[in-house]
């Protein structure tokens, strides 16, 4: 057996739709012996999390299938999660296989978001594997007639410890393809960290060989017999959130010359299907629709003025000491406002899904971040009970949060339900760029102060932003609903106290979140490192300004004001990697046309720690900033697979450079106008910096997220480097040549 995560369950598609899965293992969801018909995949999930069989199956060939609820998004979490299971069970990576996420098969571990796979999903899997091991050892003990304490395991072979050439038995012979029938109590003893052999090791990713060879099945590759191709028909570029997209008239005769093309409508939703994909594309382009005039958006020009003037719902996020008093006696105070744009997820492949909906069943294959949430939304859209719907996860292209994957799945489902055939929908580039759930714009007003010795005495952060959508464009449009914003509580976005000064020892600190209502703005949702890039851009520039105010080296200034050893650890790791030499920022400005700068910054998302040093080059004539090298360090506790974390650091750095220098959603009073890679440019190959990733390994600490935490640090380091090179603070990103030249011009 291979470690190939693409291995299919042996179901036929027809069986899956009917709900009659092939028998793999006979067990009931209660963990008690069940009738043979109760096969895995037979019934709507989620399966009972309190039984070991939900998580792990041991096969006769001495391999294991692992069932988890976290999606492979290209971050390599599959490999890391298998390592955790392999460690507890003493199985080699080649003996482990991850099972495709499926609402009829895999447990509900919540969404694959907030870098939670290893952080929150890992401990659950570790405990399940420990429970499985305990059960296997008990069986081995009986089989070999030896107490469990005298047994050891290597690659799934249980043997009597110290007995050379002695008695042994394979897991596969103890349990081969039979259920454990063991409760998952969470109390089984786990392997001590000091005996780890697989966790903490940089093993190769299980998904890469197939991806390289062109064998991997992304959701985009799925095709089934009798399938139609579908496309959505939406105005080019979304309009104000809450207004939907209302077609006043649809002229079906406008596509009458396109073979097999037909229009499907549900509520305000308009889509087309055709036998051939190119015909569906042509039909979606050609269909004449008159849309209702939408309410006005602020456009880029008036965005921040409107946000600042909005009647907001305010939340005190942190309030320590007395901030007002702290500022009174301070030796130096720095305060400024910062503007941060809407940015898009914009997966490289526009989202895609395949749906087969019959009168009483539905099978939807999609690249959602949460198969169970996707199922619930599909239930609403289709008007079909959730347990009649089966959602299977197929990887899309890197999504970095809530791109249009639910929309594509819902559109495919609506079309399939209407035409009675399987329908594959792929968004076009303009659909994805124009109808994303964007990372919200952010406005910050930051003020911080130090005493004469350079010790922070007061810190205040006010942030304005709207919240996140809990619905989707297609759902809202098809059901003619206004859309729902999650403005507060779990799953919403407020100013993150972790990213706004929490790394520093400051007696008086106040952080206020000003929630702007999303209606009348663009549709928002979590974008990788949600707003942490904005918070760090604003906060860490303020910190740097205070260092400059007392002519201190910014590294030394941070060390002086940080007490936490883990923050100091990443700070020093990044500085050491960069061979940081003490400097006063902006103190040695050059008259040359091309000048260089170096900056440092800190940032996080939730729990892990990020630090970065950036070297930049700036051309005063063109205004162009080139990031040459970024040294980025992360402490995510126990890094289960340091190579995965290094790779995540590199990806975050490149994406952060892209977002800091280039990315901005453009929109006017009517709607979004940046609809492709020209109007919404991202960092290009020739522009990429070298990246030196540093993993601060802490075997003794719990594993925390590693997918988002150096984005903010990188943005801050770049902004501080720009000041170092030019003597000018950029308080708005992306730091485009026009903005930099304008800021330089304003100084002289």
């Amino acid at each position, binding site marked *: 057996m291979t470690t190939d995560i693409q291995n299919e369950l042996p179901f036929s598609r027809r069986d899956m739709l009917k709900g009659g899965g092939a028998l793999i293992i006979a067990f009931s969801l209660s963990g008690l012996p069940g009738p043979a018909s109760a096969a895995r995949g037979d019934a709507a999930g989620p399966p009972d999390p309190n039984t070991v069989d939900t998580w792990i199956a041991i096969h006769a060939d001495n391999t294991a299938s692992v069932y988890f609820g976290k999606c492979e998004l290209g971050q390599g979490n599959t490999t890391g999660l298998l390592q955790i299971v392999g460690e507890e069970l003493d199985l080699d990576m080649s003996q482990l296989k991850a099972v495709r996420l499926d609402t009829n098969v895999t447990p509900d571990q919540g969404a694959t978001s907030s870098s939670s796979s290893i952080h929150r999903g890992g401990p659950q899997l570790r405990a399940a594997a420990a429970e499985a091991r305990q059960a296997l050892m008990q069986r081995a003990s009986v089989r070999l007639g030896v107490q469990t304490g005298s047994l050891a395991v290597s690659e799934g072979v249980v043997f009597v410890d110290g007995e050379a050439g002695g008695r042994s038995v394979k897991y596969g012979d103890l349990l081969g393809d039979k259920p454990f029938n063991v409760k998952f109590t969470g109390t089984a003893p786990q392997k001590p960290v000091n005996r780890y052999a697989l966790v903490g090791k940089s093993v190769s990713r299980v998904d890469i060989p197939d991806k*390289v060879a062109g064998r*991997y099945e992304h959701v985009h590759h799925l095709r089934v017999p009798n399938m139609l191709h579908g496309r959505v028909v939406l105005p080019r570029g979304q309009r104000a959130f809450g207004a939907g997209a209302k077609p006043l008239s649809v002229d079906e005769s406008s596509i009458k010359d396109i073979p097999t093309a037909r229009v499907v409508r549900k509520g305000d939703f308009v889509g087309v299907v055709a036998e051939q994909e190119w015909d569906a594309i042509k039909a979606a382009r050609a269909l004449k629709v008159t849309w209702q005039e939408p309410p006005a958006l602020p456009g880029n020009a008036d965005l921040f003025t409107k946000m600042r003037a909005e009647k907001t719902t305010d939340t005190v996020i942190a309030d320590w000491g007395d901030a007002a008093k702290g500022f009174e006696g301070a030796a130096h105070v720095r305060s400024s406002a910062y503007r941060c744009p809407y940015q898009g997820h914009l997966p490289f*492949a526009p989202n895609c899904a395949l749906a087969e909906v019959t009168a009483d069943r539905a099978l939807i294959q999609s690249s959602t971040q949460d198969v169970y949430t996707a199922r619930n939304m599909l239930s609403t859209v289709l008007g079909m009970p959730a347990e009649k719907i089966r959602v299977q996860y197929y990887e899309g292209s890197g999504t970095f949060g809530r791109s249009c994957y639910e929309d594509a799945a819902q559109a495919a489902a609506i079309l399939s339900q209407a035409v009675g055939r399987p329908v594959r929908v792929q968004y076009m580039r303009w659909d994805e760029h124009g109808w994303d759930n964007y990372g919200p714009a952010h406005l910050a007003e930051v003020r911080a102060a130090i005493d004469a010795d350079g010790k922070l005495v007061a810190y205040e952060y006010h942030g304005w932003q709207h919240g996140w959508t809990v619905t989707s464009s297609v759902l809202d449009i098809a059901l003619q609903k206004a859309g729902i914003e999650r403005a507060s509580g779990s799953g919403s976005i407020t100013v993150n106290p972790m990213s706004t000064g929490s790394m520093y020892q400051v007696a008086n600190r106040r952080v206020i979140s000003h929630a702007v209502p999303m209606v009348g703005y663009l549709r928002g949702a979590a974008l990788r490192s949600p707003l942490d890039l904005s918070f760090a851009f604003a906060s860490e520039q303020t910190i740097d300004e205070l260092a400059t105010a007392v002519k201190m080296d910014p590294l030394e200034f941070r060390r002086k004001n940080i007490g936490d050893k883990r923050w100091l650890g990443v700070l020093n790791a990044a500085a050491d990697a960069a061979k940081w030499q003490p400097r006063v920022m902006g103190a040695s400005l050059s008259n040359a046309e091309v000048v260089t700068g170096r900056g440092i910054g800190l940032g996080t998302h939730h729990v892990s720690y990020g630090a970065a040093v950036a070297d930049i080059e700036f051309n005063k004539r063109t205004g162009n900033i080139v990031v040459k090298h970024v040294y980025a360090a992360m402490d995510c506790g126990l890094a289960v697979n340091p190579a995965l974390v290094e790779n995540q650091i590199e990806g975050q750095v490149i994406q952060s450079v892209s977002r800091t220098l280039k990315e901005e959603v453009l929109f006017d009073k009517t709607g979004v106008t940046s609809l492709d890679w020209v109007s919404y440019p991202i960092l290009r190959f020739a522009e990429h910096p070298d990246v030196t990733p540093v993993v601060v390994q802490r075997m003794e600490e719990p594993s925390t997220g590693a997918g988002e935490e150096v984005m903010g640090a990188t943005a801050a380091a770049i902004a501080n480097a720009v000041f170092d090179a030019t003597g000018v603070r950029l308080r708005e990103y992306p730091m485009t040549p026009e903005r930099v030249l304008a800021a330089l011009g304003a100084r002289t």
Partner: protein
Amino acid sequence: MADDLKIKVNGRDVSVSASPDTPLLYVLMNELRLKGPRFGCGLAQCGSCSVLVDGVEIRSCVTAVSQVAGKSLTTLEGLPALYAQQKGLAQAPALHPLQQAFIDEQSLHCGYCYNGMTIKGAELLSQNPKPTDAQIRAHMDGHLCRCGTYPRVMKAIKVASAKIAGETR
């Protein structure tokens, strides 16, 4: 049908039933069921649909299938065989050296852009077996990656270059 359009893909002659104006990409994906070339933008801006036509990289999303009739197309699937042909090897390797380098360097995240990265990188190495950093950057600049894997694509191209130089000796 006798008057079907014929194209040659990875050494195989195939008849195309799509209309002549259909972009090549949709023929490769839907008729030939190839997984290499894939849709990314449909605007020739990103490079996910890249294939080689007589050894030169083109964007199949904006190239009508009729334009490549009679020409020799190579997709990701055919790269190892093309490499063997270019190098005069008796047998095609399982992977092009650049593909192996992508595995060795663990370059990919989601991997969606790697059809284009592989095609374009292989084109570079066939034209210029020992490219400089600046030449790699310039040659690859039309290929976007959203996950941020440019540094490892760069590294893999250099690793593959060294490997190919070794094989040539």
